[in-house]
C-alpha cells in the first residue's frame, strides 16, 4: 500500500446488466439462444421494420420480479417503458425500449460475504430493457462494419447499485453475490465472458473520512469479476495519483484494456448523449398486482445467504465450508441430498469438501454434470461407516466410481477391497503370528508395548491389507494380553 492509497477512499457503484434467460425475446417471439448464426434469430419486430409493434413477454417480468423480491425491492404496481433515443447501427429502431423514470423495482439490497463476514449493499433500482445487436468492425484496417441483430430484443434487467462499495474486493464480492443470486433464481446464467452478465462501474475517490463524493468516472468493457476488480484497482490508483499531483479528475467514461491493465479515455461528459427519454406510446404501463407477486413469491427458492446461515446452524458447518457448499444451488442441493441419505451431515460435508470439490476442480466440471449422484456417494460412505472398507480405500473407490460410473459395492467386490472383520479367523491368524515370533512376544510382555504395531503390520501383511485396521489392533493387543502369565 502506498501513501496515496491510504489518503484516498474510493466510492464505487456498479451497474449490472443481467440477460434474463427467457426462451424468447422481450417484445417478440424470437428465440434468445446464444451463438446462433448471425441474424438468424430475428423477426420484423426485433428488426424494427416499419409498422411493427412490441408486445411485452410476461416471462421477462416474472424473472425481474423474482430478482426484485429476492433483493427486497419495492415493486411498482405500475411501471412504464420509455424510449431511449440514440442512433447506432446495432439499434434498428434507433431507440432502445427501457424503463426510465418509473422502473419495475426500486430500492432493495444485495447480501454478500466480504472476508467471511456478511454485508449488504443497497440497490437504487432494477429495471427492464431490451438489448441491442452487436457490431463487428473490420479490424484489418478496412471500413466495413457488420451487424448481428440476434441479440436485439434479448431481455435485460439493469441492476443499479448505490455507491455503497469502498474497495475493489467489495465490488468483486458484490458481483459474486449477484451472480450467485441470479443463478439461484434461475433468471440468468451469470456468464460474464458470454456477456449474459455485464458490469459498468462508477468510481470516484475522496479524502479518507470525507462525506461528499469526488468526481466520478464510468468504466466499461470489463468481462470478468477479476477484470472489474483489476480495473477498479487501476482506476483508483490513477485518480489518487492525479489528485496527489494537484490535478483534477474529469467526469468521463473510460474503457478497461485488460491486455495493458489500464483504463483508457473514451468520451467526456460533454459528449454524453441526450437520450430524449419519453414514455413509449406503443406499450401500455406494466401493472403488477398482488396475485402476480404472490405467485412469483411462491416460486422463489431459498436464497443463498439464508441457505448459508441455515447450513451453519442446522449442520453445524464452519462458515468457510458453508460458503463453499452453498456456492451454487445445485451444489447445496447435492450436499443436502447426501447428508440426508447418509444420515450424517458431518461425514457428508467432510466428503464434499475433501473429495467432491477436489474432483470437480480437477475435472473442471460443475456439480450439475457430475456423474456420481448423492445416493451412490452415500452407498460408498455407508461401506466406510459399516467398516466394510477403510476411508483410504473409499477414496480409491470414489475415483473409480467417477471414472467408470460403477457403484461402490461392485468396485469393492470386484477388486476384493472389503476389509476382513471376521473375528475368529483374524484371531486365529494373530495366534499364528504370535507363535511364530516368541521373542517379540516376550519383549512386548516385558514392557516394549510399541511392538504391538509390528504384530499388526504382520497381520496386515498376512491378510493382504484387508484386515479391518481398528479390529486388527484390538485383536493383537487382546491376544498378547492373553499370553501374559497370570500374576
Amino acid at each position: 500500500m502506498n501513501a496515496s492509497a491510504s489518503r484516498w477512499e474510493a466510492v464505487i457503484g456498479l451497474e449490472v446488466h443481467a440477460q434474463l434467460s427467457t426462451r424468447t425475446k422481450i417484445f417478440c417471439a424470437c428465440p434468445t439462444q446464444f451463438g446462433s448464426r448471425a441474424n438468424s434469430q430475428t423477426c420484423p419486430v426485433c428488426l424494427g421494420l416499419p409498422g411493427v409493434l412490441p408486445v411485452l413477454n410476461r416471462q421477462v417480468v416474472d424473472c425481474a420480479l423474482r430478482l426484485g423480491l429476492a433483493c427486497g425491492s419495492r415493486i411498482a404496481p405500475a411501471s412504464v417503458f420509455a424510449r431511449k433515443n440514440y442512433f447506432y447501427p446495432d439499434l434498428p429502431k434507433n431507440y432502445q425500449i427501457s424503463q426510465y423514470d418509473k422502473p419495475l423495482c426500486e430500492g432493495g439490497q444485495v447480501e454478500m460475504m466480504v472476508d467471511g463476514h456478511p454485508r449488504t449493499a443497497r440497490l437504487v433500482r432494477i429495471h427492464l430493457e431490451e438489448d441491442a445487436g452487436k457490431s463487428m468492425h473490420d479490424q484489418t484496417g478496412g471500413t466495413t462494419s457488420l451487424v448481428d441483430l440476434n441479440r436485439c430484443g434479448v431481455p435485460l434487467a439493469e441492476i443499479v447499485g448505490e455507491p455503497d462499495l469502498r474497495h475493489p474486493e467489495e465490488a468483486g464480492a458484490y458481483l459474486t453475490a449477484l451472480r450467485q443470486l441470479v443463478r439461484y433464481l434461475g433468471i440468468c446464467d451469470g456468464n460474464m465472458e458470454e456477456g449474459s452478465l455485464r458490469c459498468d462501474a462508477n468510481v470516484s475517490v475522496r479524502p479518507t473520512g470525507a462525506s461528499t463524493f469526488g468526481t466520478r468516472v464510468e468504466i466499461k468493457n470489463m468481462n470478468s469479476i477479476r477484470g472489474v476488480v483489476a480495473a477498479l484497482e487501476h482506476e483508483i490508483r490513477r485518480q489518487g495519483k492525479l489528485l496527489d499531483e494537484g490535478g483534477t479528475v474529469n467526469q468521463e467514461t473510460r474503457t478497461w484494456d485488460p491486455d495493458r491493465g489500464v483504463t483508457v479515455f473514451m468520451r467526456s461528459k460533454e459528449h454524453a448523449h441526450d437520450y430524449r427519454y419519453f414514455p413509449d406510446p406503443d406499450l401500455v404501463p406494466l401493472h403488477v398486482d398482488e396475485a402476480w407477486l404472490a405467485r412469483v413469491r411462491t416460486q422463489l427458492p431459498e436464497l443463498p445467504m439464508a441457505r448459508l446461515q441455515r447450513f451453519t446452524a442446522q449442520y453445524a458447518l464452519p462458515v468457510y465450508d458453508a460458503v463453499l457448499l452453498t456456492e451454487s444451488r445445485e451444489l447445496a442441493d447435492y450436499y443436502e441430498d447426501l447428508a440426508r441419505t447418509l444420515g450424517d451431515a458431518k461425514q457428508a460435508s467432510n466428503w464434499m469438501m475433501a473429495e467432491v470439490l477436489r474432483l470437480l476442480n480437477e475435472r473442471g466440471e460443475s456439480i450439475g454434470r457430475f456423474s456420481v449422484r448423492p445416493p451412490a456417494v452415500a452407498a460408498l460412505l455407508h461401506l466406510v461407516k459399516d467398516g466394510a472398507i477403510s476411508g483410504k480405500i473409499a477414496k480409491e473407490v470414489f475415483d473409480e466410481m467417477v471414472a467408470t460410473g460403477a457403484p461402490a459395492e461392485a468396485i469393492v467386490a470386484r477388486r476384493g477391497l472389503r476389509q476382513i472383520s471376521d473375528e475368529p479367523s483374524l484371531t486365529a491368524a494373530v495366534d499364528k503370528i504370535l507363535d511364530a515370533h516368541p521373542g517379540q512376544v516376550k519383549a512386548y510382555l516385558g514392557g516394549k508395548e510399541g511392538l504391538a504395531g509390528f504384530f499388526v503390520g504382520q497381520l496386515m501383511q498376512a491378510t493382504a491389507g484387508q484386515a479391518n485396521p481398528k479390529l486388527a489392533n484390538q485383536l493383537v493387543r487382546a491376544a498378547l494380553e492373553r499370553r501374559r502369565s497370570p500374576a
Partner: protein
Amino acid sequence: MGLHRLSVEELQAALRSGECTPAEIYASCRAAADSAQPHIRAFNRFEDGPPPPRGDAGSAPLHGIPYASKENIAVAGRPLTCNSRILANYRPPYDATVTERLRAAGAMLLGQTNMDEFAMGSSTENSATGPTQNPWDLARTPGGSSGGSAAAVAADAVPFALGSDTGGSIRQPAGCCGVVGLKPTYGRVSRWGLVAFASSLDQIGPITRTVRDAALVYRELAGHDPRDSTCLPAPVEDPLAGIEQGPRGLTLGVPRALLKEGLDREVAANLDEVLARLAREGASLIEVDLPMMRYAIATYYILATAEASSNLARYDGVRYGVRAQASDLDEMYRASRTRGFGREVTLRILLGTYVLSAGYYDAYYRKASQVRTLMRREVVAALSRCDAIVLPTSPTPAFKLGERVDDPLQMYLSDVFTVSANLTGIPAIAVPSGLTRAGLPLSLQLMGRPLQESLLLRAARALEQVCGFAALRKARQPLPGEGVPA
C-alpha cells in the same frame, strides 16, 4: 351498369341477387380508377387484378368489394413507401392486421393511395410523388393526409378506402372530398402494420360514401389484436343494429365558444342550418364548453412531433432507402436523412427532437401531456351530458393547391377541429353536410364517447339523412372521361 358508383351495401345487394360478380365489380372500379387517375392522381399503384376467388367467399361479410388502401398500411410484398423517398424501395414481408382482416372478410385490394409523406400534412401536397387533386375541383387539394383514399372514394373509383388519422387525416380529407370518414376510438382498430407517425394518436379507419358503409367496414376492422398492446379487448358491438333510429332522442352538444373565430362563413351557416334541421327532427341541442380545446393545436404539434421524431429515427440509410456516401457514420446519417425526408417531415422531426431535449422536456412534452389529460377529462365530462359533440370538420372547405404550402401554421389550422379527438382518444366521424355556393363539399364532424361507435354512427346517420347529401353528390362535375360507359 356503373358498378363503381354503388355503395358497399348496394354492391352486396347486387352480388346477392346475382346481378353481378366480384370480377365485374373489380373491373368496373379499375376502369373508373384508370380514367380518374390522370386527373386526380389518387393512386400510387394498382394491383394486377382481383385476388383469386375463394371457395367460402359467398359468406364473407365484404365478399367481392374492392377497396383502396393508404400506402402507410402494410400489404405483404407490396410497396409501403408512405410516399417518402426514404422508403422508396421498401416492401414489408407482412400484412397489417387490417389488411388481413379485410382479406378474410372477402374485400379485394384495388390499389394503394397517395398521401402526405408519413401522413404529415393536410393537403397531400407533402407527398414525395406529387399531390392528389380534389375530384370536385381539380385546382383544389383533396385534404390530407389520406387525400388519395378520400379522392379515390369521391371519384367513384372504389366504394371504400382505408385511411389513417393522427390529427384528422381521415376526417379532413373526407370533408374536403364530400365523403364519410370515421376515426374510431384509439385502440379500437389494431395499428399492427400501420407505419407509425405518432403512435399514441394514430388510428386506422374507413372512408366511404355513406355512413352505413362506414359502419359496415368499421365492423370488420375493429377488435382486439394481441400484436398491438394498445388495442382494446372490449367486444365490438354491431354498429348497424340501431343505426336507423334517427335524430329523435339524440342530445347533441355544440361547442359554440370554439366556433366564434376563424370559421368560413359558409361553413358556419351550414352548421347552423343542419343543427336547426336536426332540432326540427327531434334532436335536443345543448351548448358544451370545451375551453381546453383552445390548446389542441399546440398540444398536438408538441406530442405528435415528439413521437414522430422517435418513430422516424429508424429511417437512417442503414436499412431503408438510399444510403448516402459519407466519410463517417454521423455524416452518412445526416446526408441520407436530409436527402430522404421531405421538408415538412424534416421540420416535424426537428420540432419533435427539440421538445424532447434535455431542458425543454418539462416545458413542452410534459406540459402537453398534462394538457392532454385535462382535455380528455373535459371532453368525457361534456359527453356525459350529450350523445355526441357537433362541429365543423374543418374551418374551411377544400383549399387551393399551393395555397398553404408556404404557411405551415395556416396548414396546421386545417386540423383545428379534428386533433382533439386524437388527443383524447375518442371516436369521431366526418359526414358530408352540404355544398358551398361554388359547389364544394361541406362537412360536419361528430365526436362520440370512447368505444361507443354505435351511438356515434347512429348520430352520423341521422345527420346524413337531414343533410340529404346523396342527392348533392350528383352535382359534382364529372372528370374528363368519367361516366363514359366502359
